C-alpha cells in the first residue's frame, strides 16, 4: 500500500523530526502519568494513615476528657469516679502519683528504675461503661482500652546529710547569797572544829562579812587545803549547798536550710496502651498493625507489643525483655499503630496494665464498631445522649488532629494535584500541537505538490493525520515508559512523609503536661494505574492527531498555487 509506505518513509526518513515530536509528546505524557501516580500514591498514603480508626476496626472512640468549669461529675452519667468538682481537679488527682516520693524508691544511694502510669487527659472510668454503650441500638461491638502516659524515671536515690555545728558559750551568773543565821554559823563552826579546821576569828567579829571568813578559810596552809575544802563543803548549811547545784542552760532552737540533694534521676515519657488481647481485630491496636512477630496471646500473659518507632529508638526487637516496675514483659511483636488519639508506644494486655498502673477494672477509651457505616452518625448521637460527659470522636474528627508533611502534601495534592495534572496535560497538548504544526508548516510546498498531483484535501489531511497518529503512539509509548520509570524511581527512593498527631493538652498551670505526640512516617509510592496510562496515552494521541490534522487542514485548504509559492 503506497500510502502506508509513504507514511513510514516520512517518519523513518525524517527521523530527527519524528523523534523530537514523539519525545515532546512523551514528556507531556510522562508528566501526566507521574503527577497522577504521585497524587494517587499520596491519596493511598493518606487513606492508610489519615484514616486512623479504620485500621483498628473502629468507627467511634469514646473518651472522657476533663472539661473546665464542669459542674457535674462523670458519675452522673453512670460512668465513673463521680463526685462534684471540676474536671481539672480530677485530672490533677489522677496524675498526682508522678510527684516523686523519693523515700519510696529505696535506700539512699541505691539505683532505682520506676515507671509511673498516668491517665493523661483521658480520665479513667469503669470498664462496665462499655456494656452500656454495647446495648445501644446500632452498635455491633465495643471494646475497651487503657491508654496511659508513662513517666519512666531512673537514677540513684539521693542521700540527704545535714551537718550541724553549735558554738561554745560561757555563762556568768552573779547572785547574793542569803546570810547564814547565827544558829547556822554556830553549827558550821562546830562542824568545822570537829573536822579539825579552825576558823581564824572570834565570833564577835562576825559582822564584818561572811566573805572574808571564807577567804580566810581558803587561804590556810598548803598541805591541808583539799581536806579543808571538803570539810567546808560538808559543813555548809543545807540551803547554801542546794543553790550551787541548781543551774540549767537556756533552751535553744537550731535552724539550717538544706540544699536539695544532687541526683542523677532522668525522666523520659512514653505512652502505653492496654489492649483487650481477646479481641485481636478491634482494639487500640489490632493484628492489622502487626509488622513483625505475633499478636498478644489470648491468655494475656506477660507479653508486650512495641511500636516500630519506639522499638528502633530503644533497640527492642521481638523476644526482647521489657522491665516495668519489676515485672518482665516479653516483646512478642512490633506494630505500626495508627495515628490519632489512641496510639501508644508499648501495648500490654489490658489486665496487666491495669495491675501495673493500679487502675483495676478501669479503662479510658471505649472503641465502638457500628453495625453499618450508615449508622455511625446515629450511634454517635446516641452515645452523646446516654453519656453527656463523654467525648465521641469519629474517624474524621481524629484525622483532623493529624498534621505533618503527609497532610501538607496530601492537601497540596488535593488542591493542586488536579490543577497540576490539567496544566501538565494542557502543556503536553500544546507542545504536541506546536510540534505537529511546525512540522506541517515546513511541508506546505510538499502538500501543495500533492494537491497539484491531484490529491484531494481529504487525502492530504488523511495522510498527515496518519503520520501524527503514529507519532502520537510513539510518543505515548515513550511517555508511558518514562512515567512508569519515574513512578518506579519514586517507589525505590521513597521520600518519606510524616504525619503526626498530638493529643492531650498542656496544662502547665496545673503542673501536668499530658501532651503526647505520635509521628508516623510513610514512604511515598506512586502506583501507576491502567486508567492513568490510558489517559496519558490518549492525550498524546489526541494532541498529536488534532494538531497534525489542524495543520494539515490549514495547508491543504490553500490553493495549490499558493501552497506551491511557499518557499521551503
Amino acid at each position, binding site marked *: 500500500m503506497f500510502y502506508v509506505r509513504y507514511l513510514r518513509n*516520512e517518519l523513518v*526518513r525524517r527521523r530527527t523530526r519524528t523523534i523530537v515530536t514523539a519525545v515532546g509528546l512523551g514528556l507531556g505524557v510522562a508528566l501526566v502519568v507521574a503527577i497522577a501516580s504521585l497524587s494517587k500514591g499520596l491519596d493511598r498514603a493518606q487513606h492508610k494513615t489519615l484514616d486512623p480508626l479504620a485500621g483498628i476496626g473502629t468507627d467511634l472512640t469514646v473518651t472522657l476528657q476533663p472539661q473546665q468549669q464542669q459542674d457535674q461529675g462523670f458519675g452522673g452519667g453512670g460512668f465513673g469516679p463521680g463526685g462534684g468538682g471540676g474536671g481539672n481537679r480530677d485530672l490533677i488527682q489522677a496524675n498526682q502519683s508522678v510527684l516523686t516520693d523519693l523515700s519510696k524508691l529505696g535506700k539512699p544511694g541505691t539505683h532505682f528504675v520506676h515507671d509511673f502510669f498516668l491517665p493523661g487527659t483521658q480520665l479513667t472510668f469503669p470498664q462496665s461503661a462499655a456494656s452500656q454503650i454495647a446495648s445501644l441500638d446500632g452498635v455491633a461491638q465495643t471494646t475497651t482500652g487503657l491508654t496511659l502516659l508513662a513517666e519512666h524515671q531512673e537514677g540513684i536515690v539521693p542521700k540527704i546529710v545535714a551537718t550541724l555545728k553549735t558554738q561554745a558559750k560561757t555563762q556568768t551568773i552573779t547572785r547574793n547569797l542569803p546570810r547564814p543565821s547565827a544558829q547556822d554559823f554556830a553549827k558550821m563552826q562546830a562542824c568545822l572544829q570537829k573536822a579539825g579546821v579552825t576558823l581564824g576569828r572570834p565570833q564577835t567579829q562576825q559582822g564584818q562579812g561572811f566573805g572574808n571568813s571564807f577567804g580566810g578559810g581558803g587561804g590556810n596552809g598548803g598541805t591541808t587545803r583539799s581536806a579543808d575544802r571538803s570539810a567546808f563543803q560538808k559543813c555548809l548549811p543545807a540551803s547554801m549547798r542546794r543553790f550551787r547545784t541548781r543551774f540549767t542552760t537556756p533552751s535553744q532552737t537550731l535552724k539550717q536550710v538544706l540544699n536539695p540533694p544532687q541526683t542523677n534521676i532522668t525522666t523520659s515519657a512514653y505512652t502505653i496502651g492496654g489492649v483487650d488481647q481477646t479481641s485481636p481485630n478491634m482494639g487500640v491496636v489490632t493484628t492489622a498493625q502487626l509488622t513483625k512477630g505475633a499478636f498478644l496471646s489470648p491468655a494475656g500473659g506477660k507479653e508486650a507489643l512495641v511500636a516500630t518507632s519506639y522499638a528502633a529508638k530503644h533497640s527492642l526487637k521481638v523476644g526482647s525483655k521489657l522491665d516495668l516496675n519489676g515485672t518482665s514483659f516479653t516483646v512478642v511483636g512490633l506494630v505500626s499503630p495508627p495515628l490519632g488519639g489512641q496510639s501508644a508506644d508499648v501495648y500490654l494486655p489490658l489486665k496487666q496494665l491495669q495491675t501495673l498502673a493500679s487502675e483495676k477494672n478501669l479503662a479510658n477509651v471505649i472503641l465502638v464498631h457500628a453495625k453499618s457505616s450508615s449508622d455511625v452518625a446515629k450511634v454517635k448521637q446516641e452515645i452523646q445522649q446516654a453519656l453527656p460527659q463523654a467525648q465521641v470522636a469519629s474517624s474524621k474528627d481524629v484525622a483532623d488532629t493529624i498534621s505533618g508533611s503527609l497532610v501538607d502534601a496530601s492537601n497540596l495534592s488535593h488542591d493542586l494535584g488536579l490543577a497540576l495534572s490539567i496544566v501538565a496535560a494542557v502543556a503536553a497538548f500544546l507542545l504536541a500541537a506546536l510540534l505537529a504544526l511546525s512540522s506541517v508548516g515546513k511541508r506546505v510546498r510538499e502538500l501543495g505538490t*500533492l494537491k*497539484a498531483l*491531484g490529491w*484531494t484535501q481529504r487525502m492530504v489531511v488523511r495522510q498527515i493525520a496518519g503520520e501524527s497518529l503514529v507519532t502520537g503512539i510513539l510518543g505515548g509509548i515513550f511517555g508511558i515508559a518514562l512515567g512508569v520509570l519515574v513512578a518506579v524511581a519514586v517507589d525505590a527512593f521513597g521520600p518519606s512523609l510524616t504525619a503526626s498527631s498530638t493529643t492531650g493538652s498542656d496544662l502547665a498551670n496545673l503542673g501536668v503536661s499530658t501532651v503526647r505526640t505520635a509521628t508516623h512516617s510513610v514512604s511515598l509510592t506512586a502506583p501507576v494505574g491502567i486508567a492513568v496510562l490510558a489517559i496519558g496515552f490518549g492525550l498524546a494521541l489526541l494532541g498529536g492527531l488534532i494538531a497534525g490534522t489542524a495543520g494539515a487542514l490549514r495547508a491543504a485548504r490553500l490553493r*495549490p498555487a499558493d501552497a506551491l509559492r511557499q518557499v521551503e
Partner: protein
Amino acid sequence: MSLYELTGVARYFQRGPTTVRALDDVTLEIEPGAFVALEGPSGSGKTTLLQILGALDRPSAGTVMFDGSDLVKQPDSALAGLRLRSFGFVFQQFNLIPTLTAVENVEAKLAPVGGTRERALQLLAEVGLAERADHLPAHLSGGEQQRVAIARALSVEPRVVLADEPTGNLDSATGGEIIDLLANLAAEHGSTVIVATHDASLAARAPRRVTMRDGKVTGNVHAVPA
C-alpha cells in the same frame, strides 16, 4: 473543438496597498495535441497563466473553458479530479517528495487512480531511469529528478502536461534532452504540452509560441510545419 478557450482572463494579487496584475485580459485558444511554448521574461505572467490552465489557481475574472466546461465554475473537488486525471505538472524545482524514492514519487500520482508499482517502474524505464528507481531525489542529479517528474506527470496519461521552466535548473545540454524527452513522450501518450520558458532558444523548438509581457499575450505564432 479547442482544448482550451480563455476569454478575458485576469488574475490580480494584492501586494500590500498595490494590486499586481499578473494576468490582464488574456484571450487564448489551444488546440489538443499541440506543443506550446509560453515565452516571456520572468514576471510576465507565464507561471500564473500555467497555474490557471492547470486548475491550480482560479482567475480573478474571465472564463477558462477546458474541454467544453468552465473551470471557473467547478468546485475544488472537481478541480482536484481534473488535476489528477487530466493534468500533469513539471516544475522548475522538480517538486519531488524528498522522502520518497523515484518510483514512489511516480506512485504518488498513480496511487489515487489505483495505478500499480509496475506501471510506475514502466514509466521510469521510459524516461531511462529503471536502474535508479529506488533512489531518493537527493541522490539523483537535476536532470534525473526532472525525468522522474516527467514520468510522474505522464503516468496517468493526462490530456495536458504543464511544465513551468522545466529546464530552469539544468544546464543547457540537459535542458535540451529534457525538452526532447518531454516532447517525444507527450506525443507518444497523446498529451498536449504547454511549456513556460524564458529561454528563446528552447521556445524556438516549439511549433507554437505564445509570447507574454506584463500579463498580456503579445505574440501568438503558429509555426508552419516543415
